[in-house]
């Protein structure tokens, strides 16, 4: 065993921020391909690794450099691999073990993970249409084309070619263009983090005590500095592996090559949405609560159907939100700690609580120090004294309430979404009409992040699926929750329901809804590694 002496040096000057080589980054990292309305997802399993690698070598996924004002992409592929996929392509165990555990275990690979992500009962991996056992994908090929029709033909052609080239294909997953509206009828994909492609961001300064939408590139791409100013763990290849010249050298030295650089992790979950169930329940509950269906549904989402926020816009600018976007995203929830405008448990508030590093944001040095020690903030006016009920008159430290500081700082837990809808869109009227057909619809939820555990799994586990998010109790995400009691016997003597939803702004007696059914069911999912293009060529070599 060897031990290096001295503390590690992490000075910025010693390792200058490297400029991103756009031609090494798969294009989907940079763009959602909004102009390519057609998409299909092919899930492949490797049968013959040699033939499969030959096929892969013939592919040329578009790079971020191909996307721009002058160039023009009509159809392209983007390719990602699961850990079993890398294994099947004969990438050595010693390399795969350099990937983080959540990737090598997979989304469905560990019961603890399934419990955290809410993938239990009807959402459990063993009920998925794909993702487990012989339906566990090895390679994801994202096909993009101008129109849906062309994407479908493209998918058929690619499927035929891969089946001759050492792959078995699962049934292709097609998409529908719903004009940026998800099947329930809400405008989707409005808020995205803005990544610092120029490397100008210095994370962790006083400015980050307030919410920032500008996020270090290392939260998205491996091999770049993340929000801690560090490099997220990534796979390096020891000297002596195959074709080392195809990979860039790792800055850590030792002759190692960088398999991770400019790659990212792609999280894929196929979410089926029960549009009829959603609007039927909303109509019934709205009648009980004496509000309109729109108001109730919008409170659950936290935005209007057209995407307008329920929250008032801020006067100050938020870093990473430009003037054009500020009508949609120029708000935080600091102005609404009680959830009177936007319920604390609303979908968008859980997905991104827009918190800064310190409650109270940027303030004077003494207040900052007090806030850091957990002694800051003002007790809320009119609050029932948080003094002990026994003995009466026992004074407590005059700090703010702990529940005002219950949520983690958002900048460490952001994801870049690249979802597309599938199935047939029905209107609300059709959904409420028992005689109209009830076609399947849902979302191919896809997101990119550099640290699955700290980003996707945290957002999904600690924010969306959690029944205790933000000091709430008994409610999960009003759209995504699995509604399974937690905990339940035998762990506790009675079931603790999670199927509630509270709108603090409403009248006290009608504020809380209970008995929410499950509106969204997970149909499949996997964690993929979306390599940089040099890494892609190395894997294919």
């Amino acid at each position, binding site marked *: *065993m060897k*031990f*290096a002496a*001295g*503390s*590690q040096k*992490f000075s910025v000057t010693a390792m200058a921020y490297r400029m991103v080589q756009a031609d090494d980054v798969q294009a989907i990292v940079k763009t959602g391909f909004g102009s390519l309305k057609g998409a299909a997802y092919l899930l492949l399993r490797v049968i013959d690794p040699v033939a499969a690698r030959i096929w892969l070598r013939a592919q040329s996924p578009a790079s971020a450099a191909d996307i721009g004002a002058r160039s023009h992409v009509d159809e392209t592929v983007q390719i990602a691999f699961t850990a079993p996929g890398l294994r099947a392509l004969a990438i050595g165990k010693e390399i795969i073990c350099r990937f983080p*555990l959540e990737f090598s275990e997979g989304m469905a690979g*560990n*019961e*603890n*993970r399934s*419990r*955290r992500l809410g993938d239990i009962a009807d959402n459990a991996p063993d009920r998925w249409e794909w993702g487990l056992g012989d339906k566990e994908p090895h390679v994801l090929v994202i096909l993009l084309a101008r129109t849906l029709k062309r994407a479908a033909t493209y998918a058929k052609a690619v499927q035929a070619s891969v089946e001759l080239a050492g792959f078995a294909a699962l049934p292709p997953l097609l998409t529908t263009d719903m004009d940026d509206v998800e099947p329930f009828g809400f405008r989707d994909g409005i808020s995205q983090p803005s990544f610092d492609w120029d490397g100008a961001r210095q994370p962790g300064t006083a400015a980050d005590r307030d919410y920032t939408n500008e996020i270090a590139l290392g939260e998205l791409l491996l091999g770049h500095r993340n929000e*801690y100013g*560090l490099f*997220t763990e990534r796979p390096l290849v020891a000297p002596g592996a195959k074709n080392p010249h195809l990979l860039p050298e790792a800055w850590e030295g030792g002759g190692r090559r960088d398999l991770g650089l400019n790659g990212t992790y792609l999280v894929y979950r196929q979410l089926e949405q029960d549009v009829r169930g959603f609007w039927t329940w909303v109509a019934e509950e709205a009648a009980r609560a004496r509000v309109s269906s729109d108001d109730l549904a919008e409170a659950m989402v936290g935005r209007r159907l057209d995407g307008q926020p329920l929250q008032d816009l801020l006067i100050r600018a938020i870093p990473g939100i430009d003037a054009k976007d500020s009508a949609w995203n120029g708000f935080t929830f600091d102005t609404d700690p*009680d959830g009177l405008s936007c319920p604390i448990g609303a979908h968008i508030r859980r997905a991104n609580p827009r918190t800064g590093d310190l409650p109270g944001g940027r303030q004077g040095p003494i207040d900052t120090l007090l*806030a*850091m020690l*957990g002694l800051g903030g003002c007790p*809320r006016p*009119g609050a*029932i*004294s948080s003094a*002990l*009920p*026994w*003995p009466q008159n*026992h004074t*407590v*430290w005059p700090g703010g309430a*702990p*529940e005002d*500081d*219950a949520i*983690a*700082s958002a900048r*460490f*837990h952001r994801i870049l979404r690249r979802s597309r809808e599938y199935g047939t869109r029905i209107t609300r009227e059709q959904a409420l009409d028992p005689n109209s057909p009830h076609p399947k619809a849902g979302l191919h939820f896809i997101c990119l992040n550099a640290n699955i555990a*700290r980003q996707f*799994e*945290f957002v999904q*586990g*600690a924010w969306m699926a959690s029944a*205790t998010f933000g*000091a709430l*109790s008994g409610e999960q995400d009003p759209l995504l929750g699995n509604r399974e009691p937690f*905990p339940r016997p*035998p*762990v*506790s*003597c009675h079931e*603790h329901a999670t199927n509630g939803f509270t709108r*603090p702004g409403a009248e*006290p*007696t*009608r*504020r*809380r809804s209970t008995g929410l059914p499950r509106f969204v069911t997970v149909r499949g999912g996997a964690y993929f590694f979306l390599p940089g293009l040099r890494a892609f060529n190395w894997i294919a070599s």
Partner: protein
Amino acid sequence: MTPQDRFVIVAPVLRDVHLLRRDLAGMTLAGYPGLADPCNAIVPFCKYETIHFARFVVLEDNTLQERAAYPQLLRYKEPIYLCFMVDCDDSACDLLSQIARECPRLHEIFEYCGLDRTGNLAEWMQAHRVRPSTSYVNWIGRTVTQAREEAKLHAELRKALPNCDAGEPQALLSQLRGQVSPELTSPAPTPLSWRVRNLVHFYAPLVAAALCLLLFPLLTLALLVAGLAMFVVALRRHEQSDPIIDWPPPPALIAQLCKGEHHAVTNQYTAIGSAKPGRFRGTLQLAIFYALDWVARHICTHGRLGRISTIHFAHWIYLDNRRRGFFCSNYDGGHEAYMDDFINKAGFGLNFAFSDAIGYPGTDWLFAKGAWREQEFKRFQRRHQITTDAWYKAYPGLTAHDLARNSRIRNGFEKRSMSDDEIRRWLAEI
């Protein structure tokens, strides 16, 4: 107010550890490794209404190889211990005797640690009690009975509220009060001895400091300045020369730990490790534990430790003549979230509390870096974590936030009069 107390029994395991583990597993719920059956046959925790949390954990340290960086430690061979820890209301001594009297099968467990078949269990347990160097209690004075009664009150109010029809706050309040008839035990008087001890503990360092400053102002200041300067020099020398120890925790360990986690809103955490050798680190650690204990007893007494509001109880305990120590906590949420919370909300506190442990990521000036080396820190803490063999929580569905909120609800419920605004706030809590 009834203050919280705890007993921690630590004894070296002298017989087969695997058999001991098997016996401890017999206390757990089928299919839930590490979660104690509240009514198990060895210690039926549910019978004791003053127990908040309890755990049996075999302190088997898999990180002793990290001592290779400190050759002076290599001559020690450290034993494997069994720890039985209980956080309770009132006197832990009385509870210990009661458990010893009423749980004969506990005798069999401690026979692994050298308790004679004919020996006196209570005396043996007393003899093996250790005192935590630092203990944290989320809310000093909140009893198990209180937590349960208030949770019931909250549930009843939640149920009753939608059936009310009054519009005005005052009318709504009296309607609610009419609909629920909770059983709420009145608080017991605070024991005088505890109050005296607490006051002495609070004032001792302050009085000592004041006396020194008043009686020998110049000498004290001079010593303080000189001491601080020497401390900073020594600290920096250590920080810059401490070996870096950083490798990933074995996947098998993580798999094992994961099995016992996330079955309820609260999880347990036990970690063990060696202290950095030498007089400087040893003294520093003692001073830090004293400071932490003082803060936990007198400042962070109601709902949060610094900015962390998810810890119910936590203890730092020395082993082996301060060569090793272990840390136990009971926290809300998932493990990864707990660590992120720690790093981002109290990274400096983590550095302060743990940087004298071997393998801790390098700190700067005692408070900086360290835990903020995010992934290195996460590897460190997972590497040192050990599986808890049997863990009990008295109120499994409730987080620390729930408990505090329920207390506020009870407070309002029992308040003689509230203004309309206060009632609105109170209703919002329900």
